[in-house]
């Protein structure tokens, strides 16, 4: 059996410059047609959709094109008065994922007053378990993504002390694997997205010392394929969103220079759609707001000066993190 690396080839006709205005136009018009099929079918993650679009617009300095008042009103309506949690959309149930997205959006707007903060804190606290892990909602799914959601939500509200931080850290560390990476729960395989969540949790809780840095960062830089793109696990295809998960993790580890940044930039730019605007997972695929944010945020980490500086831990504009006086930990090298 002969081994062949899974990868893509970048075409000669790919975009090689940043089509900033196209992306802003794409996001500004996304969801204007309320009968758009794609838009309707993704209602169950609407709150995160708003976070992706708004953050991308913020990074492009065009957030004024987003309907601010409508968004804030929508978020208020999505808070569940009983549990305090926030749902993806009207008629859906509160969940950790959407609670975080809502809090991130309000942090960017500096409008945390639009929700009941004590309610959010109560919701997050109620989901922490004895082993330090977090449920996503009352139905009991455990995942390190929810640990990250919990500490990020609370730190944005300056209420991190409401949970047992040491236990939250211990749980995340119990998910560390032989390769230094992390999975979704103890025993789960390492995955770049979950590594980002776990490293992010440790960055907010200032416990980056507990990482096996050399092993982890090596595993992360080995995600880069000959095309310049990054995959999320060994022997998988590249995907644009991993340029965020991997590069944000490497930024927190202070080892962003372990990948070829020029080649990665070429891959990210190749994922733009020059007709519709927006970014997709791989060159030639259909674009969406999720990959558009992570394309732009990835370019920001690479130092692209036409995009605002992004904070690697929070995936929000650095200016917002500075305004909130948050100082997530970055390792020394």
């Amino acid at each position, binding site marked *: *059996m*002969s*081994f062949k690396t899974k990868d893509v080839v970048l075409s000669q006709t790919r975009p090689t410059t940043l089509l900033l205005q196209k992306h802003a136009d794409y996001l500004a018009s996304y969801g204007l047609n309320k*009968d758009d*099929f794609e838009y*309707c*079918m993704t209602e*169950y*993650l609407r709150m995160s959709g708003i976070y992706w679009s708004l953050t991308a617009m913020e990074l492009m300095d065009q957030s004024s094109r987003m309907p601010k008042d409508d968004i804030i009103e929508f978020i208020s309506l999505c808070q569940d008065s009983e549990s305090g949690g926030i*749902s*993806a959309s009207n*008629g*859906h*149930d509160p*969940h950790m994922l959407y609670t975080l997205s809502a809090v991130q959006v309000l942090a960017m707007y500096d409008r945390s007053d639009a929700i009941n903060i004590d309610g959010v804190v109560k919701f997050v606290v109620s989901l922490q378990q004895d082993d330090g892990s977090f449920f996503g909602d009352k*139905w009991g*799914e455990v*995942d390190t993504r929810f640990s990250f959601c919990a500490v990020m939500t609370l730190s944005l509200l300056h209420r991190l002390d409401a949970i047992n931080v040491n236990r939250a850290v211990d749980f995340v560390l119990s998910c560390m*694997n*032989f*390769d230094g990476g992390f*999975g*979704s729960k103890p*025993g*789960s*395989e*390492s*995955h770049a997205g979950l590594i980002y969540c776990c490293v992010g949790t440790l960055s907010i809780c*200032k*416990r980056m*010392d*507990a990482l096996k840095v*050399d*092993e982890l960062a*090596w*595993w992360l*830089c*080995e995600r*880069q394929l000959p095309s310049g793109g990054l995959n999320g*696990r*060994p*022997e998988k295809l590249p*995907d644009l969103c991993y340029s965020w998960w991997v590069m944000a993790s490497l930024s927190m580890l*202070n*080892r962003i*220079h*372990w*990948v*070829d940044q020029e*080649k990665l930039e070429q891959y990210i730019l190749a994922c733009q759609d020059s007709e519709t605007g927006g970014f*997709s*997972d791989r060159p*030639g*695929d*259909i674009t*969406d707001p*999720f*990959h558009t944010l992570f394309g732009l945020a990835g370019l920001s980490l690479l130092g692209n000066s036409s995009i605002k500086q992004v904070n690697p831990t929070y995936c929000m504009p650095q200016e917002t993190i500075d305004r909130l006086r948050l100082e997530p930990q970055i390792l*020394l*090298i």
Partner: protein
Amino acid sequence: MHGRLKVRTSEEEKVKKEKERQEKLKVFKHAMNVIQNKRKKCELDTEQLDVTGQVLTKNPDIYTLWNIRREILIVFRSNLSVMEMTKLYDAELSLTEYCLKINPKSYCAWHQREWVLMTRSDPDWQKELALCNTYLKLDERNFHTWDYRRFVVSQCKPDLQEEFNYTTEKLHDNFSNYSAWHYRSKMLLHLFPDKKGGRPIQDSHYKQELKMVLSAAFTDPDDTSAWFYQRWLLGAVKNITQIVVCTVTPSKVTIAINNSVSKSYIKEKIKVIINNHEVIGEWKSCLGNEYDDLWVLNHDQSIRNHLDIKVKHILVDNEMEVMRLSELKPAIYVGRNKISFQNKYSSTVLDELNEQLDACRQLLELEPDNRWTLLTTAFFLHCVDAKAYHKEIIDIISTLINIDEQRAGYYSDLKSKWCMEDNIQENYANLSLDYKVECKKLSSLPHLQYYSFCEALDLSNQNLTSRVLPGLIKLQHCKKLNLSNNKLTSLQGFPYLTLEELNITDNPLIENHVEQLRKKLKNTKIFF
């Protein structure tokens, strides 16, 4: 959205497709309306099960719909017979199976399956394990299926040796099955820990695993999975927390440790004793964190000449290590430990490493530019005897910097780390307060806490970039620092140090940055 290719279609086709989609959307919106209305009216009934089921078969990620189904099943449970419930639970499992066929990565569908099995009184775990086997045949890397397998195993508790054998089987099918290597690492730690020796794995199994990796790697050296497993095996050695150096001066006491420890560890396990009196005071992490490898104690003792200073360290097995400090200069006391960065293996394992090293060298003769074989050879050399092979190791890493440009940054930092380790061991052999780091072209400064006691450190003529500056905070006793002829482009992040002299000549710096640093380090003579 993942893996959806944009296809060019004619206008006609577009119109047709849009019409189809609007039809689908109408059905979807109607169903969602029905569901929401029924929910508002608290109608937890079979009709609601039917409608939510219909929507979920097409969109298994609408989490709220699964919540509704659970609410209904919970209500039914208190009214229906066991037989009737069994039927409903079976139907629920079929629904999740159907959904997983559409989207094998649906978190919601997998979680629903777990919920059903944990809720019903008659779960058939063997059937679930068989289902995992089937799914892993279809996609051997789906991490949801592997997670589900671990869940099932945690419930039905089969002999873990069987699970270990399963990974062997999977790996013999395909050595590049990283998920199987991962699961194997977990099983290995469970089944064969070396409890007596304090090592992660028993020697006999350690050796066996190394052999397995080598046969995988020789099948195809470009298949990366086995190499990660091998790297882990090589690093799986006993690790002991050790004091590296303790420094006492009239202004402060510092203690450097080989790895990060908590504040309470320092407080409880380490005592500094001056003329038989324990120094009392609050330990502060050098970086201001709860865990650190350099701790600072600001004290109010008067530190004079000819004091008797020692540090006591309570070790894991309650043994006590005592280190005496010597007065290197009037009122400057330093105590250093015997240090080593060499991994220690048993002779059985060492023999195996040497054998594999030979195999790698043979492989390199056939394929001198294979990056995996090169890197592995360097690691074997480092594990066997880092000091004796230092030059050969550094030559290999230098080759890798050239042939694997994408990861040149990684190799440079790896080279820096190994050079620093070599240099520190040399420096620790002669007692002084003034050192020059004799490495060539360092790109990073690992283990800097080992130099925390120095008064003068020469880091000139390296490849240091501004990235390393915040780390200089570890040089807590430094008075003269030489960073000339490096690649510093900015001085932002330069820490507050009580330096007398700082040399930053021959760096691509902007004057403006130097001015800002002058304001920060008011009492430092800066050579620019």
